[in-house]
């Protein structure tokens, strides 16, 4: 039907390096975002392996200097959050959103390119601390007064590099979010009403609002920290009239909404994949949209749940709001599951990773809800329980979502399929490794192992579980090998994908793989949230009510 019949468009992508470096095409920018984020994922992962190697046994064996240990986990988290997961999701958004709304490009292509290139620059600045006498070492949260270094002037320039890098990344995110919003509001194809937008687009929309409203606030916190550190300011150091908890309020005012920035687009990807592979529409489309918006809105009123033990926040309010946020998330969870119910599931790799997301994010969400109960959080805060929570949502949720999305859209991006067998091997290794690494951390946390310690007493009873976690960590790393090999061979000799290898629902499957510049020659008519499905089966096919 209206499918484009272009020459094997792969040729478009063989263009020279210069072309890539100067491009403003949202697809190339999106792909570069993804590649860049993967590079940082491996860097962050290697740092994590450093952490795990040290913690494998009691005693200081690997990172024998505690100060180095602090740098390593600080960089691990900073890289993973700010240079892997957030940009990765922005990259998928970049690639997919214009395609899914039938737009030729993003609204501001040059600003888009700028947002991309700020990221590797920030990464270099951040990590250069390792060569310049030390990186930041106060955790990814960098609470003052510790991060002010007034007393133990031990981090050298690292903390300032960290601040600089984060401001850069934040600016990149803000510009990116404005770009997304204008694109989504102004560049939709005819017929693409708001409530016909794919869920992926909705999640990017809500994410962008969160980024636009929250990121500037952390920029202000970072600037205040910088002024304190370098210009003799008095914001956060109590010994000079400042307020240490103020920073935490401002930081979490950003960083809680930011955790939804780190997961909503992944939820959007899942919401494209589950319907495709169960051959049904997403169950409860509108409820899903409202739940997403609800999470976004509630996300701004829960920040102090990271500060329950400070003794300086109004506990009941933040506890209630934190509990409530489980409700819209639950709505989504059930909508996903009922998308599967009565469907016809094909277990391709994207679906496996999507199911991994469902089952693992569930654990991460529920163990997060434990902490909403303030007294329970008194026991769990700053222990490995929280480390378990954060990896179940960020790795079990977001990162599984990222791999699901990668296997799903790789054919669109490159014109070739990834290998299914290698994909399944990766999934199984990663799934087992992930649980082996992070499940024991619940137990460690309950037993009282604090986070951010380089070593623990051999008599504390934490040896076996730590060893298990370390083995698991290396298993996750091992699961990356079939993945890398898969990408490598599939790029050269993978199966040719064709326009629509999965029988997708949304507009990106109506154009060639990879799509031509400006994406579409012709668009199918858009009468529902599944234009390509309608085109294939006729509008209202399959017993549509």
């Amino acid at each position, binding site marked *: 039907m209206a499918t484009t019949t272009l020459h094997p468009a792969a040729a478009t992508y063989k263009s020279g390096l210069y072309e890539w470096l100067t491009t403003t095409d949202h697809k190339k920018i999106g792909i570069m975002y993804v590649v860049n984020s993967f590079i940082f994922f491996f860097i962050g992962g290697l740092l994590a392996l450093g952490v795990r190697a040290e913690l494998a046994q009691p005693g200081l064996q690997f990172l*024998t200097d*505690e*100060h180095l240990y*602090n740098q390593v986990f600080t960089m691990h988290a900073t890289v993973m959050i700010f240079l892997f997961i957030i940009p990765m999701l922005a990259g998928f958004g970049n690639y997919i959103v214009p395609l899914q709304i039938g737009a030729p490009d993003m609204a501001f292509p040059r600003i888009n390119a700028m947002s991309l290139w700020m990221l590797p620059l920030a990464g270099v600045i951040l990590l250069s601390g390792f060569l310049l006498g030390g990186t930041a070492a106060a*955790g990814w949260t960098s*609470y003052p*007064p*510790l991060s002010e270094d007034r*007393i133990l*002037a*031990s981090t050298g320039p690292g903390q300032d590099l960290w601040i600089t890098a984060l401001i850069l990344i934040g600016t990149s995110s803000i510009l990116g979010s404005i770009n997304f919003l204008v694109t989504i509001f102004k560049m939709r194809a005819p017929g693409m009403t708001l409530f016909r937008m794919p869920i992926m687009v909705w999640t990017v929309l809500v994410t962008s609002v969160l980024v636009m409203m929250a990121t500037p606030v952390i920029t202000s916190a970072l600037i205040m920290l910088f002024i304190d550190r370098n210009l003799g300011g008095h914001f956060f150091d*109590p*010994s000079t009239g400042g307020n*240490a908890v103020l920073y935490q309020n401002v930081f979490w005012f950003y960083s809680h909404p930011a955790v939804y920035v780190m997961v909503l687009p992944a939820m959007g990807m899942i919401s494209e994949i589950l319907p495709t592979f*169960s*051959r*049904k*529409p997403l*169950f409860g*489309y509108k*409820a899903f949209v409202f739940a997403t918006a609800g999470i976004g809105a509630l996300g701004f009123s829960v920040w102090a749940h990271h500060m329950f*033990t*400070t003794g300086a926040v109004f506990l009941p309010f933040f*506890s*209630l709001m934190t*509990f*409530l946020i489980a*409700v819209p998330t*639950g709505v989504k*969870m*059930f909508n996903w*599951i*009922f998308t599967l119910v*009565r*469907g*016809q*599931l094909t277990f391709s790799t994207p679906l496996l990773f999507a199911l991994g997301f*469902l089952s693992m994010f*569930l654990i991460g969400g*529920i163990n997060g809800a*434990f902490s*909403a109960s*303030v*007294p*329970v959080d*008194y*026991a769990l*805060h*700053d222990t490995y329980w929280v480390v378990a929570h954060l990896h179940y949502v960020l790795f079990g949720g977001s990162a599984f979502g990222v791999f699901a999305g990668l296997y799903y859209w790789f054919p669109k991006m490159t014109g070739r399929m990834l290998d299914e067998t290698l994909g399944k091997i990766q999934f*199984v290794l990663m799934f087992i490794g992930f649980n082996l690494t992070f499940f024991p951390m*619940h137990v460690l946390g*309950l*037993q*009282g192992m604090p*986070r*951010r*310690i380089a*070593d623990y007493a051999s008599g504390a009873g934490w040896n076996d579980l730590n060893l298990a976690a370390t083995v698991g960590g290396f298993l996750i790393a091992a699961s990356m090998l079939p993945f890398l090999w898969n990408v490598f061979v599939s790029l050269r000799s993978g199966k040719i994908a064709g326009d629509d290898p999965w029988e997708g629902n949304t507009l990106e499957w109506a154009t060639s793989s990879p799509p031509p510049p400006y994406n579409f020659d012709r668009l199918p008519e858009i009468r529902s949230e599944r234009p390509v499905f309608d085109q294939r089966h006729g509008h209202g096919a*399959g017993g549509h*009510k």
Partner: protein
Amino acid sequence: MSSSPRPRSASDLILIAILVVTMGALIIGALATGFMDGMFPPEAVTRQGREIRSLYDIVFWIAAVIFVFVEVLIVYSVLRYRRKPGQDELPVQTHGHNVLEVIWTVVPTVIVAYLFVISLQTLNSIDAVAKSPDIHIRAVAQQFRWQFDYLAEDGVTTLFTEDVATSDQGGGMHVPVGANVQLQLTSPDVIHAFYVPKFLFKRDVVPGITNRFDFTIDPAEAGQTFRGQCAELCGTGHRVMLLDVVAMTPADYEAWKAAKIEQAGATPAPSASAGPVAVTLEETAAGIKFTTKSLEVTADQAFAIDFKNEDPASVPHDVDIRAADGSVLADQPTIDGGTATTYTYAALPAGTYTFICSVHPFPDMTGTLTVK
């Protein structure tokens, strides 16, 4: 939508096999390793901790039911609704179901509302601070050690100070069981957190703010020692900020306290056996580091160390001596940054010892003392 029996493809079987094996392995592993015990915090030893534990148990079981319910729903849907060979017709295109949507909005709302209410009740009970508790203690947390000031009834005047925080060095926060102890938390430098796992409780020590909380140790726990440690990243020595809480019978406690007060009143006599000093060594601390990492003295002769602390005023140091097995042979008082002192030490038999700053007991502030 009906489910007629159908041939299974090989890959489906493999998948089921993997699932079954994994699940089986998980369950067996769980049982074999006392998994369920692991999912609960330790038995609490304070009244407040026990309340938290009861709350935890409720939260846990509700969470466990939700978890199992949802996870089973996922696994069931996955196994049940696989696409079978020859299924070319589209499945029924259900777009939603209003009743279901309402159910799974309302039920979780009710659950979390319940959890919120019981959490709030527990919170009010455990966060209550008494106007006139039985015992006032001020815990001072600083990079990287704890110090406990025992206060008079006014909650201000210091009666005596316990500046050794762990029991293997003969210190620890000693408290009587059954008494309502109120802890005030202060920090002169960065944020720390007072955490004792068996209290199921922690509270941040924030510079500029004095946090307080009450606890009462159960009478049955007399004679026990509970390990604790700083739970908020506070720098290089974060993990060595250990502390112990020593629970005593009221009688033992009174005796301990009387001895402490007496000790504090007496002029701090330098170790009686120090004897005439044969040799004076020098040591300087700067940037939380000893500048000299190895010292040498003659066996069986008392000696002294001229010690200069060149760090900022708020950073105290000392030079203690420990035997190879970690036991403390000389425990010196700390001096503030920017000051100097001369520590004298009793004679030691030949051997290799460690000299160490008890405030910062990590590699940069540890050295070797060779006695020949």
